[in-house]
């Protein structure tokens, strides 16, 4: 018994000497590994709250789509599919570079990490640029819900050169619900991207200083999780908002 305790004590001492404490290691974590795990876990819990947050809007979308389907079809067909598709590709590309950024941090390539973070930022801004152009188009077409919203084109689409089913006046009003959800969901998504881009500037500057090229990748990794989450939200927004009931080519 005494022997085992002594042996255990020796092992413990041995481990004390073996253990290299890195500068980023906080004292309240047993190991580096545990610290990283706790960080990932915390980030995921935050992302789950985000799922519930966006989920509320997705629920509203599903419900109103079910209730006012004809209005949703007519309104959705006014969205710009080429720009939406381009934006999907742009955002996937941005996410791809972010993933490569996490890899660059893990293999401690400082130059590559900075390059990938900058590419992530550029594609993020490109996305917002296309989005701004789409919003401007909505402005011009009076598709922004509220006082200046124009339902006439949905009541009498033929007069406006649209190949849509004409809607009864009460159903035509419901197109505003679609556009409200469009702005709420894409707007909240865009806000998340703006926050992400602000964080990217800060992370790029820190990466340039060399903060993430010595094995300390947690901030890059957790920001990556956030960025990919925003990506996933868009992967659902695109088909649900833009591709409800397109007419066969």
């Amino acid at each position, binding site marked *: 018994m005494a022997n085992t305790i002594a042996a255990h004590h020796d092992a413990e001492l041995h481990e004390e000497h073996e253990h290299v404490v890195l500068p980023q290691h906080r004292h309240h974590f047993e190991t580096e590994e545990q610290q990283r795990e706790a960080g990932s876990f915390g980030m995921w819990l935050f992302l789950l709250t985000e799922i519930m947050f966006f989920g509320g809007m997705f629920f509203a979308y599903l419900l109103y789509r079910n209730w006012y389907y004809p209005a949703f079809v007519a309104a959705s067909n006014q969205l710009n599919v080429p720009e939406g598709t381009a934006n999907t*590709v742009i955002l996937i590309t941005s996410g791809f570079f972010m993933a490569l950024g996490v890899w660059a941090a893990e293999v401690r390539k400082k130059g590559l990490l900075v390059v990938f973070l900058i590419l992530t930022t550029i594609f993020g801004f490109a996305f917002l640029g296309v989005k701004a152009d789409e919003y401007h188009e909505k402005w011009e077409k009076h598709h922004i819900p509220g006082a200046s919203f124009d339902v006439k084109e949905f009541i009498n689409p033929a007069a406006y050169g649209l190949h849509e089913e004409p809607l009864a006046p009460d159903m035509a009003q419901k197109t505003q619900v679609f556009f409200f959800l469009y702005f709420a969901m894409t707007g909240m998504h865009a806000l998340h991207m703006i926050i992400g881009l602000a964080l990217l500037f800060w992370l790029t500057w820190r990466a340039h200083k060399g903060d993430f090229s010595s094995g300390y990748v947690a901030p890059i990794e957790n920001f990556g999780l956030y960025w990919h989450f925003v990506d996933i939200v868009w992967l659902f927004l695109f088909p649900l908002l833009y591709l409800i009931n397109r007419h066969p080519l």
Partner: protein
Amino acid sequence: MSEYHDAMNVTNPEHAEHHIVSPREYCFVYGALLIGTIVTVLAAYKDMGVLNPIVALGIACTKAVIVILFFMHVKYQSRLIKMTVGAGFFTFIVLVMMSLCDYMSRAWGLW
């Protein structure tokens, strides 16, 4: 380093070494996501009746799972993280399904 090292305190027994996903894997994932985007647009212009939204959501879910597993490294994370992610999505699905059952059936029999 904590003063009291407890050898029994193993938080993460299966997570021996941190897995680094290679750029090659990321390229495959990127390609898969681009193909998924093209397919979802083409599928939207085909008239499949009730299948259209199902196909659209199916492709979107597939792409999301790919992103979660590879870009977000969940495939290589500990069971704790996998369970956390799974539980979150499961809870969300339950909330949406139950709420939709309620709302969508409210006016049944009234028309």
